[in-house]
């Protein structure tokens, strides 16, 4: 049922090959940012052009695609990307995490543990973890090459000096396999532990910045910290108002003008499946 005016998954075969080569290189050097010739996509930068290109390069006609935006399957970004691939690739889609073979995500990792054979594709706005500390690309590349990562800890030092704790709560940098420092895209630091030792392939695509990087299955990814200020994956204190989970990542929802609020799971599929299963 795909639109025959498009090549499968929108991109031409040569482009997909080029992207696959970048992906393979990324998998071979976990955490290393591989430059690739990002294409113009029929959506604005910041809407997941990097993730979409990676997904397009990974999809086969037999795949079942899930797209989430901040954990939700039903927000604009998720819906439009899902429809885009339904139309251009004709692949099956799902919202159920365990059933999906490819999951494109913006800013979350699903609550349910991923399994071997699955691919998780992240949309990345700024792939360079050193960017806000060192504006020169030539210099950040050199720093990665020479493992010159003192600056990363300067940022964390500044956090503690100013806020009394490491205030970075999303896009929290990790060191991959003891070598490259990597920006895990703006996922909450609550999700950081799930990056490490994950059974699925994790791919990161930054369209505007033209970078692809990857974590192969079961890769080590250690969140940076200090001995006396260890990394803590925090989340809002409370339980989901719908499914009652107190272990999942929660969104705060303001429910009236009187300051009333409630917490709900950010992962809508997880929440819905728990709510269904309840008596």
């Amino acid at each position, binding site marked *: 049922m795909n639109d025959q005016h498009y090549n499968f998954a929108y991109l031409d075969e040569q482009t997909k090959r080029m992207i696959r080569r970048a992906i393979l290189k990324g998998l071979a050097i976990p955490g290393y940012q591989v430059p690739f010739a990002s294409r113009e996509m029929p959506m604005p930068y910041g809407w997941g052009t990097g993730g979409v290109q990676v997904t397009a390069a990974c999809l086969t006609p037999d795949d079942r695609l899930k797209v989430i935006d901040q954990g939700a399957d039903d927000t604009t970004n998720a819906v439009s990307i899902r429809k885009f691939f339904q139309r251009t690739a004709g692949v099956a889609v799902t919202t159920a995490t365990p059933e999906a073979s490819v999951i494109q995500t913006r800013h979350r990792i699903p609550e349910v543990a991923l399994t071997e054979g699955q691919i998780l594709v992240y949309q990345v706005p700024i792939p360079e973890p050193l960017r806000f*500390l060192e504006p020169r690309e030539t210099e950040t590349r050199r720093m990665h090459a*020479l493992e010159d990562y003192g600056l990363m*800890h300067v940022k964390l*030092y*500044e956090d503690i*000096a100013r806020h009394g704790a490491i205030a970075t709560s999303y896009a929290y940098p990790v060191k991959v396999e003891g070598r490259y420092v990597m920006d895990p895209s703006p996922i909450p630091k609550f999700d950081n532990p799930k990056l490490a030792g994950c059974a699925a392939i994790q791919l990161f695509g930054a369209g505007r910045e033209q970078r692809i990087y990857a974590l192969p299955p079961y890769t080590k990814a250690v969140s940076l910290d*200090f001995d*006396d*200020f260890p990394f803590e994956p925090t989340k809002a204190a409370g339980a989901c108002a719908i499914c009652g989970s107190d272990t999942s990542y929660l969104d705060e929802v303001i429910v009236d003008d009187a300051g009333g609020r409630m917490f709900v799971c950010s992962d809508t599929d997880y929440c819905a499946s728990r709510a269904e299963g309840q008596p």
Partner: protein
Amino acid sequence: MSAGPLFRVEGLSKRYGARIGCADVSFDLWPGEVMGIVGESGSGKTTLLNCMAGHLAPDAGRVLFDMKDRGMVDTVTMPEPERRRLVRTDWAFVHQHARDGLRMGVSAGGNVGERLMAVGARHYGDIRAAAVDWLGRVEIAADRVDDRPRAFSGGMQQRLQIARNLVTGPRLVFMDEPTGGLDVSVQARLLDLLRGLVREMGLSAIVVTHDLAVVRLLADRLMVMKDGRVVETGLTDQVLDDPQHGYTQLLVSSVLQV
């Protein structure tokens, strides 16, 4: 103290096209020695300093440093990772403009702590304590540790830059006009501080300046440069009081007496 020189430059040359940056410069620097390099603008002293400190690649010559266990090693041909390690441990570079040597968006404590973190310090409390200690040694109050350098005066910024450089206990410090652009009274304070640190830490230093008063107070030895070449070397007071080369005589006699 080791038996040999700490630092040795052999036949160092750098050209910019047809123009000479510096030509065939050689000297030894021993542990604890401070060497001044003077000359007017364009004499090649800054080119020489940048070649020695690894900021510029020389066209010819060697820049040897005593790597303790391995003896004298040529830092020009040294692998980049090793040179970077050297630059953030045993070497230090004090820029003329503090803003070139500081991270202006990072607190004073973070600036001082960066070198420690770069060599693997991972205990916040210890890093902060070391930063506060060093701020004290350069006469910056401990309660300024979380302020950014923008909020500091020029003299304070320069002292912060020195603290940031010396925190890892380097053995060799390169200084490019360290007192340039500062008020005279602030200069004096900085010179006093530098002299004390050089003596206490047994530092060796190479100071490039056009200010003869600075070298007289700071340097043991002096090298005078003109058109990229060294025209005279010797004990600082000897070169200043009994200059042999015509250019040095001109330089010394051109200084305004206070």
